[in-house]
């Protein structure tokens, strides 16, 4: 059964489309005039204007490693972040803390820790899963480099970006 769509009856002027065309031209002209007069709110002009000052608390930038208030690197190379990372951007080589070290109790520290920033998707799962609260996503978002080698952040770079974050839980309390 053919279903005929009921179309509205157009007046003569409406069928000509000319009044609509003129109305459309008036709308575009209004937009043009408003932009030229500065009345329209324009998006910010990067890089002169940035929104770094207004980044929310929970903003997920580049992942970094942190040290605690005693200067110890918090990461114990348990490799949980490596296993949970969806694009497999993290590569860890676990290592041993020598017995003479003041933090020998911790036993493990990463020998090498690489995050390939061309793979990282800034999801924050590594931060969620870390049992030592060693990896945090900071507010840095403009990660650029001139070669693929430059885009792989090694351990030194990660600690440099991360800085220090005091322990929330004194897991490795020397008094225990």
């Amino acid at each position: 059964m053919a279903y005929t769509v009921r179309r509205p009856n157009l007046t003569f002027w409406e069928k000509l489309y000319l009044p609509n065309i003129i109305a459309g031209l008036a709308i575009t002209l209004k937009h043009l005039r408003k932009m030229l007069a500065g009345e329209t709110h324009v998006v910010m002009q990067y890089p002169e204007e940035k929104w770094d000052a207004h980044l929310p608390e929970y903003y997920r930038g580049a992942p970094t490693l942190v040290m605690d208030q005693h200067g110890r690197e918090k990461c114990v190379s348990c490799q949980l972040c490596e296993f949970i990372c969806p694009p497999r951007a993290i590569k860890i080589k676990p290592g041993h803390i020598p017995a003479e070290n003041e933090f020998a109790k911790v036993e493990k520290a990463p020998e090498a820790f690489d995050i390939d920033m061309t793979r990282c998707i800034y999801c924050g799962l590594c931060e969620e899963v870390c049992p030592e609260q060693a990896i945090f996503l900071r507010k840095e978002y403009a990660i650029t480099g001139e070669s693929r080698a430059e885009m792989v952040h090694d351990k030194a770079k990660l600690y440099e970006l991360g800085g220090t974050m005091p322990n929330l839980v004194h897991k490795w309390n020397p008094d225990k």
Partner: protein
Amino acid sequence: MALLNDIPWFLIAASVAKTLFLIFLVVLPLVSYTVYAERRVSALIQDRLGPNRTGFPISLFGFKKDLQLVLGGLGQPIADAVKFLLKEDFTPGHVNKVYFWMAPVLAMVPALSTLAVIPFGNYMFGQKMVVADVNVGILYVFAIASIGVYGIVLAGWSSNSKYPFLGGIRASSQMISYELSLGLSAVPVLMILGNLNLADAIDYQVKNGWLLLPFTDGKLTLRELLLWVPVLISFIVFSISMFAETNRLPFDLPESETELVAGYHTEYSSMKFALFFLGEYAAMIAGSSVITVLFLGGWHVPFLPVNTLESSMTAPGAVLGLIHITAFFAKVALLLGIFIWIRWTLPRFRFDQLMKLGWLYLFEIALVNIFITAGILALVR
């Protein structure tokens, strides 16, 4: 100076100078900056800024930062030109080599050639400011502009691929349909002017006021008032056909970016694409110039004195000549602005709507217009 005009080499040198001035110093920069103006104006219409900064990459040569001149985005066409020069010019394996290479040339050269008969100024230094003062001015324009169709059709055909093929076919049918209205709508104007020579057309408009605005000579006769109606209809039909001839929205089916990837110039890259791209804008400029000359009085500024051959060799005559040339290009720029404005307002026509408009409406209106004009001219002699 009149004697100098008899010396052949002087005539040749003067023509070459006018051609160089017109094409290389005015039209080609105008084409590039029309592209820039389109990007800026379209951005402003869409509530965003266009390209408003250009950095010259001197950091490649060892300087610390790229050079940022105060020009803002005005260096963008230069950047585009450098990009087109340095890009890889790739000819795919599956194309018809002869026509593939010929097509961009056929798109650009007719557009620039039509500018040879456009009078862009009054007398200056004893020379008429038109490269070729032929007595068949407007006929030459229509003839050469028709060759521009071949560029698009050959590009679509030789690319040997689906989307360019469709673009080429649509272009050929569209341009043929609107050629008729273009020519027929110019006939009433030519009947009023009595002459095909474009420089004489402007002389007529200097004496009797612009065709579209007959009051610009200070007086309005009954004849002018009666003739205003067909001239207005002629202007509208001519402008719409000019939009269709230059493949500008709302008639841009051949290169519709949302449907056909890039239409007839899909397979082109670098300089060949630049020729198509700039050829389209050069055709726009040529079309706007013809509309200006026929309807808007060309280089004439109302109530400003006009140079004669003798007075053009004096210093105030030279200044007046410059003012006239500037006035011409100001009118062309205004028309280009309207082209851009309409492009970013109207949606594209469907193919059957386009054909219907060309064959059923514009063609008839243009034909009837000729008879109306003839009747009025016979009545109010």
